[in-house]
């Protein structure tokens, strides 16, 4: 796992966006304004460092809504602790992306 001190501002923004309920790549792009070429590789690294976890949506839910299933991401306990440390390091983080916890279902319709 990457130590807290090594988290870049971009990675911290993505963690904050996840914590705020933006749980898939495109919604994080929309929220942070970062391009896909930045967001997805950053999420790969965060997942590799076990700060976030990914999980495929159930096929039945996607079929019911006539869309392909999505891959959702969520913070791990380590990721949450890292985010707390990052908020102290980047005080504007919460102002950029206010936390408003959503359920996965709500996030999916977001």
């Amino acid at each position, binding site marked *: 796992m990457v130590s807290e*001190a*090594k*988290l*870049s*501002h*971009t*990675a911290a923004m993505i963690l904050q966006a996840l914590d705020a309920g933006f749980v*898939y*790549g*495109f919604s994080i*792009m929309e929220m942070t304004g970062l*391009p*896909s*070429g*930045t*967001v*997805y*590789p950053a999420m*790969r*690294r965060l997942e590799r460092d076990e700060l976030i976890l990914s999980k495929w949506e159930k096929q039945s839910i996607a079929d019911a809504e006539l*869309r*392909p*299933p*999505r*891959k959702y991401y969520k913070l791990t306990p380590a990721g949450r602790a890292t985010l707390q440390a990052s908020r102290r*390091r980047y005080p504007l983080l919460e102002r950029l992306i206010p936390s408003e916890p959503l359920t996965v279902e709500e996030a999916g319709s977001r």
Partner: protein
Amino acid sequence: MKPSLKQAFAAMDAGLLGCAAWLVPCSRRADWLREWRAELWHVRQERAPMEQLSWQAEREIAFFCLGAFQDATCLSEPRWKLATLLTTLRGSAAQCLLMLFGLLAASYGIASLSSGVRAERMITSRLQNPGLILIQYADCDSTTIDPKQYLVWKNRRHSFFDGFAFYRVTDESVQEENETGSAPRAPWKVAQASSNLFVLLGLPVRFATVEADSALPQIILSKSFWKIEFGADPHIAGRVVRIGQRRARVAGVLAEDAWNLPGKIGAWLVQPDSALAVSGNGFIVAHLNSAGREKMWAPVMQISEYDEDEGPRFFGYNVDQWQPGSWGIFWLGIAFAVISLPAITSVSLGEYSMNPPRTSLGRRLYRWSFFSAKIALLLPIVYFSTLDLAYFRTAQSSQVSSSIQMISAFVLFLIGLRWALSDHRQRCPVCLRRVEHPVEVGLASRTFLAWNGTEMMCMGGHTLLHIPSLPTSWFDAQRWLYLDSSWEFLFVGSGVG
């Protein structure tokens, strides 16, 4: 949007994802592609939900898909390592030295391929008889001289020379006499040489003992010619060959690379002086006696005749000393460049600092070693580049090529020194990485109230460089600001440090 156009865009986007997927390792490809396709579906729903044509939406979707390449590259482990390595190398001292090594290899490679350099190297590489000079006209670029001049010199007494030889190079086919009926062989360079040429040059030719036949001139073959045209036949000596319309008897084979004068020659046809005088120009080689060797210390000498009033007509190139890329000429250009440097740029390395420097003695030595390495690499780069320039068009040494070499040595080394100093001034004293991200600070109209200029930062988080745009009495040269540990968080994830 027209359905066909929409399908075309959709196909293009899918194609982009498909191409990017090839960069992803096989084990993860299916999952990766599934996620991107699902995301693309949602992006399309979000950006272009209606049937109307929206180029802006399609452009955004295409950009979204292009991001897949970066994601795929990230997942590819070797590529990721390569990307990390490139990020680490960017702007570093190692990158600078690698670039210089590349330039050195390129300039050396070009110089090695240059026919002029190869020819001149041959002149000097295997010196057999000290005191040889190659004579050329002083007032033109021609390398060859009228054979009548050779006969005049040969038959005259000289103060500084004790022998002259002549050879002329022509393209002719050489074949055995009994092959007369067959198709002619490909032409080779054949030198029609004066009989004293090999003695004057001191070349170790083992002449074969052949049946005396004074009516036929002798021909000496080069080893490569003997191998290619006669299959290295050990019984070649004494056979009669035909050179064009003339007949000659093979007298011997010259050792590989023994020939060290201009012209890649396959065979030497030894002829009497009377036969040489009736044909075209050739090369004249002279040998200095002891008095001449004492007088001739420079690579090039002027040759005057007693009855000349209008200055020397010939130059003599000392085969002993003179060579392409002569070090004397090269160092002269280098010396001029070093002397001229302060006239075109500041020679300061700009190591002033605003706060106490964090560099140890070892770091300072490392910094100076790097600077010395740059200069040390510049010298051979400039040397080989001057050869490239001087011998780019001329296949033979001349005054012109010497002049080009000296001038180019001066210009190239001056440019190189200027670059080395300017590059060094913009390298972080701590990590030797080039500072980046220039930012204009301050207003020129407030020069007397606050500094204005350019601020650059070390991506390792060690220093900030302040360069004043207008030197003042209180801020006349660039200064380094050493950053303390409170800045470090800004540089995590930069890939350097």
